[in-house]
């Protein structure tokens, strides 16, 4: 399958360990790729490097085989772009902004714009400064989706959108994917990535720590377990089980987290009279937080899946 986005050792060093370091990534054509990371992890830096807004300290990036720095105009012909921060268009009306950007780009079908504004419920007759933050974001989406593109680069696209419009946005992404458009979507909202993406890259402190399909990512999940015992809690035996962490005992109540399979733990529990047993599957959000809450973090899985 053709490669839509390829980076090799892509780095942008802002000093003091800030920036992006040695990013090696491949996103296949037609794929919807989620790019996850907390604030300041390097998501927007990556996107700005792909869009040739900023220049790499080292390494290179390509979009559909075209070097992002050597031929940025050719790259941008293929790309629809939604910046993370909404540009300031002052007193211009929405229709003028769309007309102006369409004039810069060319090849924009007014019927496509009409369809997008209908679906996103955006009035282009109002002045930009009168738009709410959500409407400004909708206008950004119209500008990104209004022309045929092979790659959509969307930086935190649902910021400020209400849930109904978010659903419409996901449908737009699905349709784009179905038409063969590659989508590179950055976010710090895991549910969004879960909803829209096929594969996810997780970025932390400027380094890619994990690239995986959603199913693979789910394997990283842990379960929380709570059990009530008729007698004493076999705390020592439970603590001794491999993969069990965070054991907490209160009277006859046990709570812990379990990484990997339940078999060894169930063997231990089976020796006692268990009155109640509840497990919770954490959301992807919880997995994500487990990665980033603790400064040391769980041992990151090498990003071999990047290629």
């Amino acid at each position: 399958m053709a490669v839509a986005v390829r980076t090799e050792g892509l780095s942008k060093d802002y000093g003091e360990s800030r920036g992006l370091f040695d990013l090696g990534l491949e996103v296949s054509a037609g794929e919807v790729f989620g790019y996850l990371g907390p604030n300041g992890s390097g998501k927007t830096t990556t996107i700005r490097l792909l869009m040739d807004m900023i220049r790499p300290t080292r390494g290179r990036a390509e979009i559909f085989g075209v070097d992002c720095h050597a031929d940025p105009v050719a790259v941008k012909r293929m790309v629809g772009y939604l910046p993370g921060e909404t540009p300031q268009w002052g007193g211009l009306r929405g229709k003028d902004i769309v007309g102006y950007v369409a004039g810069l780009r060319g090849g924009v079908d007014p019927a496509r714009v009409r369809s997008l504004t209908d679906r996103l419920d955006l009035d282009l007759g109002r002045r930009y400064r009168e738009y709410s933050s959500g409407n400004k974001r909708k206008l950004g989406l119209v500008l990104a989706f209004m022309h045929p593109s092979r790659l959509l680069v969307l930086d935190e696209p649902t910021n400020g959108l209400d849930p109904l419009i978010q659903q419409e946005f996901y449908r737009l992404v699905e349709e784009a994917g179905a038409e063969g458009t590659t989508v590179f979507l950055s976010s710090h909202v895991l549910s969004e990535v879960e909803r829209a993406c096929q594969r996810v890259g997780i970025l932390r402190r400027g380094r890619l720590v994990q690239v995986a399909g959603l199913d693979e990512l789910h394997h990283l999940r842990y379960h929380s377990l709570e059990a009530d015992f008729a007698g004493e809690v076999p705390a020592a035996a439970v603590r001794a089980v491999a993969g069990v962490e965070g054991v907490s005992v209160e009277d006859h109540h046990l709570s812990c987290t379990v990484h990997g399979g339940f078999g060894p733990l169930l063997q231990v529990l089976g020796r006692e009279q268990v009155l109640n047993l509840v497990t919770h599957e954490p959301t992807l959000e919880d997995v994500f937080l487990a990665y980033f809450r603790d400064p040391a973090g769980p041992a990151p899985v090498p990003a071999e899946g990047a290629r």
Partner: protein
Amino acid sequence: MTTVTPAPGAVAPPASGPMRGSAGTLVRYGLRSHRWAFAGVAFLGFVSPYSAAASYVAATGTAALRASFGRQTVSLGPQLAYLVPLPIRPDTVAGYTWWKGLTWLTLVFAVWALAAATGLVRNEEERGLVETWVTQPLSRVRLLLSRSAAFSAAALAAVIITGLGTAAGLADGKASVGFAALAGQGAALLGVTLACFGIGLAAAQLASTRRSALTLGGAVMIVLYILDALARVNPGLGGVAAISPFHLADITTAVVPGGRFDGGATIALFAIAAVLIGLAALAFQRRDLMASLLRRRSAATPVVRTPSDNPLLRIPVLSSLWEQRIGMAGWVVGSILGAAFVVSIAHSTGKLLASASGFQSFVHAAGTDSAATAVVSSVWLGIAALILAAFAIAQTSRWAGDDAGGRLEMEIAQPVPRWRIVAERGLTLAVAAVIMAALGSLLTGAVAPSQGVHLDAGSLITASALLVLLALTFAALGALIIAAFPRVAVPLLAVVAVAGFYIPLFVPLFKWPGWVLDLSLFHLYGTPLTTGVFWTGLWVMVAIVVVGFGGAMAAMRVCEVGR
């Protein structure tokens, strides 16, 4: 007991516990926000009276010369009464310094006050800063008053520096002026500045954008200024003109020998300021953020779902011109009005100049024997050059705003080469400058014969074309500075403009070497209407345009956007 010694360089915790919020923080922020404009106004405040005094002393060496020069200036005064007050005792260094060096500063301070007032309300609201301020435990009234206090402090400092410039100039001219006179004159200047600040604050409550606030406040100030101007030529209007802060300020002439300080008028100025600031604070308390006090219910309009079909938006350069059409119209109208005014007084003023020996140097400096042509050449084309320089600086400010506001990022995200953005900016400015210079010169050429002023058509066209080149020169410097130091581009260009304005005055006055003249862009423009093209200047300007825009294109190609 263990004593803990902080590591070297460690920041000690505040002794008084958590940081305390107060209106003082806003005053400090306000002072910081005024620093660039303050520097410019204070510079002009010092230089203008000082240079007026120095040039007077240099031009009038003897008592007889001073008397003669004074008589001629008095006879010239009515010609300029629509612009500045009538001269008083111009046969003295203090009288001339007041007339030439101080009176026009009233306008400079007034424009600064208007821009500051509308900016601190509307600009900061549009940037979301006011929303942050008002969510703090601080009343809106206190917020506005603390920002007003910051501006008042900055204005007071600028007035004091103006007083120092006046005192220094008069001292060099061996004229003495008392502290009370300086303080009285300064009080009048401060009063009119704060009154205009109040007008700006009030206008900002009634308008919903900074541009409309500037337009409304500017219109009110122009009406009040015209009222004052009419009262100068028709003293019978003095009663009506008393509502004009400019008139109330003009009454005080304390630094002029035999002049007076009008305490009542000065108090009235401060009262106007206090009332307007108070009303603005009350209005601010009542209105919605991002809205006018007089908010109209928006009329139901059909929802628009399609892009604009305006073909201009799809054509480079024309799209930028269309977007700026209202502001551009203002610049063009200003140019035409300036040309109309100067040409209308050229004949009568020329006659006066021709009959006054003291002004012969002015006529000769313009490179012509015709005093009326000298007026058009030096006064109108001088004003036009200043207008176009200001326009180029305003455009530079717009470019810097585009870069900072994310618009450049959106443009670069489209499939257009980066150099095209710089080229389009330059071409947009060039087209606008052509329109402004052409209309101003067309009017000049059309009206001049009816005033008995005969101008060579070819020279007028050349002079107009060179005005465009001058604007492009400023813009090229601006484009280059933006590439490296976007935040200081406008202040730096303003310095270039002000320095360029004063260098031709200072070089003969202070006997600076001749090459210093070539540092002035206005000197490079020359006097093409009367002496033909100053070729060295032309080539230097062309070189600046090529290097400036070329460098800006190269810088745009490598610059990082949105970091």
